[in-house]
């Protein structure tokens, strides 16, 4: 029986790897989800039938406290199903942050429980690397828990999205972290010092909050990816504490996934990890954001519609504003209308557009826009010079030509979509106010740029209304 359980764990680990591998293409991605589900099911069954008992024997008969376990499963399922089906796609970043928080909390609580449970045998069961694994698991778990809750609060806009900073912030954070680390080392040396543990856990919780408050909304894609990585690593540390290879594999997969995504996000903003975490983006520019009055051109929906109608190719550049305005279905109508007229419509997607990696793709896919029309930055930039109209909806910094030219700009060096190379640029925006990053966008003052003022959803539906009217005329 014991061997069977180990083989089941191996199969489960293999299925997890396959699951991620099949995510490489939309055509196979549903198999990927299925493989993951089966892997998880096998792992849970194996845990029950391989439950360790006395004298090295295993079996489901050794499982106690069934009421607790089953009740928890029922509640978790009852909460999970509505979350999965009711959650609107625009709220996916918040849900992701919430589930990072849940996963991290679980790892931290299991670590805490193990620590106290093993106290009677501390000299054998909490020695050496097991204790190291436990403190890593709880440290990462608790800080990711509060950090993810803070990120969720910012995404849900119950907390201010702008960075919150104060003097000596980094010094305070560093000292706190150093104390937590000191306590961790002390605990590893002497695991019987149970009174230290709550202080250690409290510091980790506090550190998670302090780590996220100075980070602005636009940096959320990177932060979510980093938290994803931490949550994975804490599951991995649990694997070391329990000597479960399956947990190590699954945790490492999650950790490396978060790592890769955060590297991609950082590259897409031309910034380093430390800069994202400790740079308090947005704060710096607030002082440089004072722009002189410059002239720009604006246009009505009617004028904009006639330009779109005459175009033969249009590239739409979506950003976070699209998600806020929930404009994806209206954009789909515009896409349909223009496509029927023979206009070639594509979407140019910047890696950090939105609030999490891939956010725009999911929203546009939700509106039934075929995914071969969703083009990555590097692949679409060559098309802008031949494009008649670039329509920017709710995106700002990722289109700012200053990133190429102005060495003094905070976003200098960030790869951008070359929207300014299109023949005509149209920007749907609420007003001329710069975003909270406070960086003035030179794109808006070009001669070929038309500003379309209004809510993204309302303006796009006006555009759609104008278009058929012109056919009839």
């Amino acid at each position, binding site marked *: 029986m014991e061997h069977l359980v180990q083989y089941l764990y191996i199969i489960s*680990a293999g299925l*997890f*790897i396959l699951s*991620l591998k099949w*995510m*490489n293409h*939309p055509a196979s991605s549903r198999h990927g*989800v299925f493989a*993951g589900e089966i892997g*998880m099911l096998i*792992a*849970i069954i194996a*845990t029950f039938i391989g*439950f*360790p008992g006395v004298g090295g024997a295993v079996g489901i008969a050794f*499982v*106690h*406290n069934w009421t*607790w*376990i089953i*009740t*928890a*499963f029922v*509640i*978790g399922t009852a*909460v*999970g*199903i509505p979350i999965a*089906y009711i959650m609107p796609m625009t709220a996916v970043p918040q*849900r*992701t942050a919430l*589930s*990072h928080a849940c*996963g991290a*909390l*679980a*790892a931290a*609580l*299991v670590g805490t*429980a193990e620590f106290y449970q093993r106290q009677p045998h501390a000299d054998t069961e909490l020695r050496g*690397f097991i204790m190291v694994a436990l403190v890593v698991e709880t440290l990462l778990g608790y800080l990711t828990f509060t950090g993810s809750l803070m990120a969720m609060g910012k995404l849900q806009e119950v907390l201010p999205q702008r960075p919150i900073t104060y003097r000596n912030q980094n010094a305070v954070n560093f000292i706190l972290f150093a104390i937590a680390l000191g306590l961790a080392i002390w605990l590893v040396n002497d695991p019987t010092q149970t009174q230290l543990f709550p202080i250690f856990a409290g510091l980790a919780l506090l550190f998670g909050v302090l780590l996220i408050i100075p980070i602005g909304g636009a940096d959320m894609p990177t932060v979510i990816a980093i938290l994803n990585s931490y949550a*994975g690593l804490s599951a991995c540390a*649990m694997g*070391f504490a329990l*000597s479960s*290879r399956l*947990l190590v*594999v699954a945790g*490492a*997969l*999650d*950790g490396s996934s978060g790592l890769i*995504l955060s590297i*991609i996000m950082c590259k897409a903003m031309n910034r380093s990890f430390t800069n994202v975490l400790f740079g308090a983006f947005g704060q710096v520019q607030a002082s440089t954001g004072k722009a002189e009055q410059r002239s720009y051109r604006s246009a009505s929906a009617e004028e904009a519609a006639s330009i779109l109608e005459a175009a033969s190719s249009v590239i739409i550049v979506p950003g976070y504003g699209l998600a806020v305005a929930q404009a994806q279905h209206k954009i789909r109508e515009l896409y349909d209308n223009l496509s029927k007229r023979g206009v070639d419509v594509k979407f140019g997607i910047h890696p950090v557009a939105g609030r*999490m*990696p*891939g*956010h725009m*793709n999911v929203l546009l896919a939700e509106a039934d826009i075929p*995914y071969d029309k969703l083009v990555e930055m590097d692949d679409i930039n060559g098309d802008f010079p031949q494009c008649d109209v670039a329509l920017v909806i709710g995106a700002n910094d990722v289109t700012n030509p200053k990133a190429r030219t102005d060495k003094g700009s905070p976003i200098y060096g960030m790869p951008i979509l070359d929207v300014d190379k299109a023949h005509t640029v149209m920007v749907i925006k609420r007003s001329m106010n710069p975003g909270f990053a406070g960086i003035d966008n030179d794109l808006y003052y070009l001669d070929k740029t038309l500003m379309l003022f209004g809510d993204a959803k309302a303006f796009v539906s006006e555009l759609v209304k104008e278009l058929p009217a012109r056919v009839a005329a």
Partner: protein
Amino acid sequence: MPSDLELGLFVFMLATFIGLEVIRKVSPLLHTPLMSLTNAISAISVVGAILITGNPDATMLSKVLGFIAITAVVTNIVSGFLITDRMVKMFKKREVKK
């Protein structure tokens, strides 16, 4: 025989490299579902949560913490896999004929 730590590190090293290689090939189109999928997979910590809650010697503290942990990760497993499936279903190559 290698110790648990050595075996664990060995597996960790290999799994990290596999993870890095596999994830690098994931289409940027699918980065959001990828994150919710890995999130569901890392809810494998349900194994640890079951072990601590079902332990015959579990103290009240262990039972309570384990109970919360199972609830949290089962929520992640269920919502994670279902929402990932809901998302990847949306990615269609051609428009549906109306």
